[in-house]
């Protein structure tokens, strides 16, 4: 209870801090959601994407140089 009260007093009591909290947490949640879903996608599609196979084709020119 004490923690929630302090949190309320710090972040939600005043309109300016509440707005700041809303925007910052929206930004953070979006970042976490997007990178999390990308991570799941990459795990499911492991070995199928270009980034998984490009090593085979990237190394050749380096050897020639």
């Amino acid at each position, binding site marked *: 209870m004490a923690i929630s009260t302090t949190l309320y007093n710090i972040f939600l009591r005043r309109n300016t801090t509440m707005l700041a909290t809303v925007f910052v947490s929206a930004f953070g949640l979006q970042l976490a*959601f*997007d990178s999390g*879903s*990308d991570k799941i*996608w990459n795990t*499911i*599609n492991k070995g*199928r*994407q*270009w980034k*998984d*196979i*490009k090593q*085979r*084709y*990237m190394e050749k*020119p380096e050897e020639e140089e």
Partner: protein
Amino acid sequence: MLPAKRLRLHPAQYPWEHVKWHKTFDHASLRRGFQVYREVCASCHSLSRIPYRSLVGNIMTVDEAKAMAEENEYDTEPNDEGEIEKRPGKLSDYLPSPYKNDEAARAGNNGALPPDLSLMIKARHGGANYVFSLLTGYPEEPPAGAVVPEGLNFNPYFPGTGIAMARVLYDDLVEYEDGTKATTSQMAKDVVEFLHWSAEPEMDERKKMGWKVLAVSSVLFALSVWVKRYKWSPIKTRKLVYQPPYAPPPQSRILDKLNEKKL
């Protein structure tokens, strides 16, 4: 009886891995499919909506794409004298077409126009299944009784069954750099997957966005169910009790009163 123009075999449903909701294209297969396109299909079919830059990061490296673009010449902007010169291709150029225009393409192919393949998977009923069936569906001999006009080939999957394109994919027609055995069906699968990519290069983003929409909207849906139950709880839990305004007199007493009046 179907009119001959619409006579066709429906393609079978193949278990395409990249069509699943959570799968991307097999990019090694895309690379092989582009090789098949370049070595086989490109002699007649254009792929005019694909620039070299879109191959980078999907099918080949920047250096490979640049080298490939430079193999072809493109028109420059008019110079000071208004002359248009030739320059080597850049990443921003589109893949060259085998013919200058449709008329030249018809003239070179016995009057039949090889369609542009950029959006072919989207443009035909059956999509990838249809193109795969068409490429692998040429019989050795047309069946008995089939009428095949002069200059056409028999393919049961093509509407009308008479197609100007002959069978092109034969085993070991191309040599894959990754050692995959180039059977007819392997090449057809690779080129169909490549054409699917060229028709829908945005597929990955679309699928990812779809999953995100489902995730967010399922949370919102659960929330809306909760809010609805919360708001309705007083209405759902209230009790209605019927209280009659007065107790009616028993039947017998009414009859008694009526009898008294008569007396």
